[in-house]
């Protein structure tokens, strides 16, 4: 064999060298590319391929009222999903269709979804995951599980699954809905406290990282690293569920009865701490179903053109979510006179003895301002002017105070800024700045017109007039607690500044008490308690001019109790009432009175009755069940009550009113002696009547009445509401609560 020549060997060596260099350099470049240039990318790809990484959602904190009654909480729910690509992978066409049909029929029935919708989802064959229905509750989820196990042959659980998630529940439905707000699909706060404290409530999500095997299946225990989620903290609100319930109940009745066009609002606040005990807006929404409109609003949407429907619906949704007490500024009207009065007293511009004569109108810089009493109130003191809500008096007082001093106090009362309440969406006030305030602006501002503040700004300022002069910051959250109920943070009282002196505050309190006991606020009277307050009926001048409509008013009432040492403030406003009356003293003051009447005993304020009040008190009905007819008769007669016997038995087997219920002297007690005896009667109409008319109508029909509202301060009161609707069948002897109010109130601010 011929030996390779040296040249040949050299050539081969060169070729080999080139090959080796090429291979090494290519490999090197690739390695540089993989490890350095695109290192991060490939690392991530490898991690994704080899690691199972899941986020553990933190449990959202709860929301409690001040007595730890749960208002909002989260519970597990499920998302029902299908895997269309898995179904598509079934080779046998007949079997594939069978699976599709089975799933469509089953899920449609259980989840109450149109079959066509499910079919559409199943036909998204390139998709791995299609959610059929979200937030499915346990009972329905159990039905789905049962359905999936019903046909082992088709292995339905391969194509349909359930993913666990959580849903927010609001235990009292619409109660305090505009305060609590609501959450979105991903449990993020969208309004109210849920939005304001979203970060606090959300907590810190956890994480599970586990290895995947060669088949891409998780290896949960072998290479698993789990960081537990930290549950969100919970909120303890200053809201008291009972106070909130009572406030909403009476506010809602007033909104309906007075055909209020732009919703009603009410706040109950502790004047010393700034804690909000109740904050209500009616109409509102159910946070369990926040996107659904009220029947009336839905009708409006249905009645609009197709292309406008979406916008109208969205507007109405935003309106129902809006917390009117903090987001909608309004002209406070005569209620504001309390502030003007406080400034005057503090600055010594007026005093209790000084008098002023109201002739029915007053001119300021050529502009005529009328009093609601066209003939004029005549000569009156500050107390009388407040009781009468006399416009010329307060315009004159405002002029005496002057623009600079007035503006200084206006700002000191917090009316030029947001209160800083811990809720989202607080609106800025709209007012005349000192450098732009002339005599006419000062005149109208003095009696509460031509500027706008929100209800929360007004009640905060008014609280300062009765609490010793301190301007406190209102707040809705009392404390933040962790999942073990340990206190994380206490929200204490924040006194911003001293606005007026204690002495002035005491004087103002006394004047306000007289407004309820003998002035325009009589309809807020509550027997046994010293209540103070001021009514207001403001004209919506700008809205009337813009819309060309007439008679747009805001009827309001601000009340305080107990006046010996004021602790509670109540503000009620009805925006655009269209009923038979629109005066704050007539339609808003009774609501304030009803709220205070219910919440004062509940909050532990003991009523103190005068001798006159004690005499008019109702009598507690004695227990006569089990007694003979003659024994029962004599017991009732000696208690000052009348009776009516139903049946022919010898012994009393039932009585109405039952023992310990209270009725007025000479009230009727129905005594039943026979099991089968029936004495139902139709409840008569008891509204629009005087006290004696109500008494006789009810007695003639066989019913008892309980007089509520303004019944002791004036003889000229008329009933406006009854606890059992007229026409309803009720057992004779039943006690019907009838509410009274006076009609003589005038507190409107007129600008001519």
């Amino acid at each position, binding site marked *: 064999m011929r030996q390779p020549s040296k040249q040949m060997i050299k050539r081969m060596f060169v070729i080999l060298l080139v090959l080796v260099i090429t291979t090494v350099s290519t490999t090197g470049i690739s390695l540089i590319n993989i490890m350095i240039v695109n290192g991060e990318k490939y690392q991530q790809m490898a991690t994704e391929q080899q690691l199972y990484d899941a986020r553990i959602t933190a449990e959202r904190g709860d929301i409690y009222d001040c*007595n*730890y*009654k*749960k208002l909002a*909480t*989260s*519970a*597990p729910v499920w998302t029902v999903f299908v895997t269309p690509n898995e179904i598509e992978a079934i080779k046998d066409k007949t079997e594939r269709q069978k699976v599709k049909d089975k799933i469509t029929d089953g899920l449609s029935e259980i989840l109450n979804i149109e079959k066509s919708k499910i079919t559409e989802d199943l036909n998204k064959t390139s998709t791995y995951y299609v959610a059929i229905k979200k937030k499915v*509750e*346990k009972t329905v989820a159990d039905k789905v599980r049962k359905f999936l196990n019903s046909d082992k042959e088709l292995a339905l659980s391969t194509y349909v699954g359930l993913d*666990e998630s959580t849903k927010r*529940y609001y*235990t*009292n*439905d619409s*109660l305090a809905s505009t305060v609590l707000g609501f959450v979105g699909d991903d449990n993020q706060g969208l309004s109210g406290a849920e939005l304001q404290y979203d970060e606090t409530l959300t907590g810190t999500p956890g994480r599970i990282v586990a290895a995947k095997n060669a088949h891409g299946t998780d290896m*949960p*225990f072998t290479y698993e690293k789990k960081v537990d989620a930290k549950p969100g903290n919970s909120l303890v609100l200053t809201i008291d*569920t*009972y106070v909130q*319930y009572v406030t909403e*109940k009476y506010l809602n009745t007033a909104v309906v009865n007075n055909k209020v066009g732009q919703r009603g609002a009410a706040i109950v606040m502790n004047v010393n701490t700034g804690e909000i005990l109740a904050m209500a807006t009616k109409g509102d929404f159910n946070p369990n179903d926040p996107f659904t409109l009220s029947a009336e609003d839905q009708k409006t949407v249905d009645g609009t053109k197709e292309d406008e429907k979406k916008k109208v619906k969205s507007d109405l949704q935003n309106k129902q979510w809006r917390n009117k007490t903090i987001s909608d500024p309004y002209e406070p009207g005569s209620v504001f006179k309390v502030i003007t009065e406080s400034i005057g007293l503090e600055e010594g511009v007026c005093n209790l003895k000084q008098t002023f004569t109201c002739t029915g109108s007053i001119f300021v810089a050529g502009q005529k301002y009328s009093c609601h009493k066209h003939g004029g109130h005549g000569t009156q003191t500050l107390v009388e002017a407040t009781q009468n809500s006399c416009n010329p008096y307060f315009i004159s007082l405002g002029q005496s105070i002057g623009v600079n001093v007035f503006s200084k106090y206006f700002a000191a009362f917090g009316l030029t800024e947001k209160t800083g309440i811990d809720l989202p969406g607080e609106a800025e006030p709209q007012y005349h700045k000192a450098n732009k305030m002339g005599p006419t602006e000062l005149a109208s501002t003095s009696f509460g017109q031509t500027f706008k503040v929100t209800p929360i700004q007004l009640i905060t300022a008014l609280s300062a007039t009765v609490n010793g002069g301190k301007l406190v910051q209102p707040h809705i959250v009392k404390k933040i607690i962790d999942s073990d109920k340990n206190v994380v943070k206490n929200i204490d009282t924040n006194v911003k500044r001293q606005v007026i002196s204690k002495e002035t505050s005491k004087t103002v309190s006394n004047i306000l008490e007289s407004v309820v006991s003998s002035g325009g606020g009589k309809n807020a009277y509550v*027997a*046994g308690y010293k209540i103070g307050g001021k009514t207001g009926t403001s004209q919506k001048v700008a809205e009337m001019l813009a819309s060309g409509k007439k008679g747009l008013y805001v009827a309001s009432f601000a009340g305080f109790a107990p006046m010996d040492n004021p602790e509670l403030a109540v503000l009620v406003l009805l925006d655009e009432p269209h009923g038979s009356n629109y005066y704050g003293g007539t339609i808003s003051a009774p609501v304030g009175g009803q709220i205070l*009447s219910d919440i004062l*005993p509940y909050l*532990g304020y*003991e*009523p103190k*009755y005068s001798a006159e009040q004690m005499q008019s*008190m*109702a009598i*507690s009905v004695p227990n006569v069940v089990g007694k003979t007819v003659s024994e029962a008769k004599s017991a009732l007669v000696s208690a000052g009550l009348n009776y009516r016997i139903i049946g022919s038995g010898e012994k009393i087997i039932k009585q*109405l*009113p*039952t023992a*310990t*219920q*209270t009725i007025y002297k000479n009230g009727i007690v129905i005594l039943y002696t026979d099991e089968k005896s029936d004495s139902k009667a139709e409840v008569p109409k008891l509204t629009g009547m005087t006290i004696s008319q109500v008494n006789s109508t009810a007695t003639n029909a066989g019913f008892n009445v*309980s007089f509520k509202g303004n019944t002791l301060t004036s003889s000229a009161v008329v009933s406006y509401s009854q*606890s059992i609707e007229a026409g309803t069948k009720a*057992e004779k002897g*039943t*006690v019907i*609560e009838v509410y009274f109010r006076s009609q003589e109130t005038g507190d409107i601010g007129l600008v001519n």
Partner: protein
Amino acid sequence: MNNLKYYDDSLAYNFELFMPAKEKKAKIVDMPESPRAKAARKKASKNMVAKKTSVVIGTLLILGFLLFSLFLRSQVTETRAKIEKINNEITEATGEETQINIELEKKLSYKNLDSTAYAMGMRKAEKNQIVYIKANEKNKAETGSGVQFAENN
């Protein structure tokens, strides 16, 4: 030169001469074994057995250890699976409890209580029917919900 050897002085060739030479058996004389050597031999033999035994035991031990660790591993996996299952059951039970509590809270709302009480012909106590007790700092009772009640003093 005749190198051939003749057998028994015969002319026949002694072919054995051409055959491979037979090994001559060494005359081994069995010498009496010394006690030392005997002991060494026995020791070596014992060592051999011990070595073989230890190899077998070692192998068995390693095998046993491997099997045991496999068993342990399976037990751990099984226990973990049980824990996971129980945890899931706890989560589900807790969720169910929450749901029931929510239903209960809803049923006990003031709105429901009010309407049910009215339907049953009940009325709220009048203000003068409520007995007020005055609290002092010493005689207080606190409920689980944190609400404080006072004893009569």
